[in-house]
């Protein structure tokens, strides 16, 4: 699934997309960054309500190339800047984490298995 389709499914606003397109096969939802760091992530996007710089930094460390911020959280300019430096796509969505997860699952994204 490409980033435009992801954004469309979650009724999101795509704030930044890297020049090099990624295709996503799985998703992980968490507000606890230590949980994100426990799993091996490739072609995976992160759904979170944690709207801080650490969410972007955790994505970078975990090789996650897209973060969806749920529940209408507003992404700061500092976060966008860090995302740009690390080629991480950023989407804002007014939907809840549960709703976003369900919609993406219905459309074929898989969970990360521990």
């Amino acid at each position, binding site marked *: 699934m490409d980033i435009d389709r992801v954004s469309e499914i979650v009724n999101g606003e795509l704030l930044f997309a890297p020049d090099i397109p990624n295709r996503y096969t799985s998703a992980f939802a968490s507000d606890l960054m230590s949980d994100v760091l426990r799993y091996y992530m490739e072609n995976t996007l992160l759904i979170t309500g944690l709207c*801080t710089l650490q969410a972007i930094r955790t994505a970078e*460390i975990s090789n996650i190339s897209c973060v969806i911020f749920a529940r209408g959280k507003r992404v700061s300019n500092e976060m966008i800047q860090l995302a740009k430096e690390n080629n991480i796509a950023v989407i804002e969505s007014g939907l809840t984490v549960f709703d976003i997860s369900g919609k993406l699952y219905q459309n074929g994204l898989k969970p990360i298995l521990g």
Partner: protein
Amino acid sequence: MKIEYYIEGGNFSTAGSASSEVKKTLKQFNISPLLLRKVAVALYEAEMNVVAHAYRGIMSVDIQPFCIWVVVEDEGPGIEDIGKAMEEGFSTATEEVRQMGFGAGMGLPNIKKNSDEMTLTSTPGVGTRLELSYFVKLNN
């Protein structure tokens, strides 16, 4: 090749930048993505621990042909009971740390899981020293 980074305790806006720099440096050595991720995750958790608990710290990374040695040393309150600190779920983190998505008592177990060897020593009231080793074959 040896690199050192200063870590400022309590500064959450720069937390993770040292680990990020190390990850970018290691990428140039063309090591396996799995190993790269292991090192990056362990360093990031260690860096967050310094930011969350200590006054200041130094992260030293020594990249050798067959191994990577890491030392993260801080000045701070130290750890009273290392055995307890290693238990998953045990945490003394503040509310501010939890709001950053950390402080659930998973950092040290995550570091152990993401290292080949780990040695943690601490003197309460003085500071903490974390040593990590990775045995690798670098491709260049």
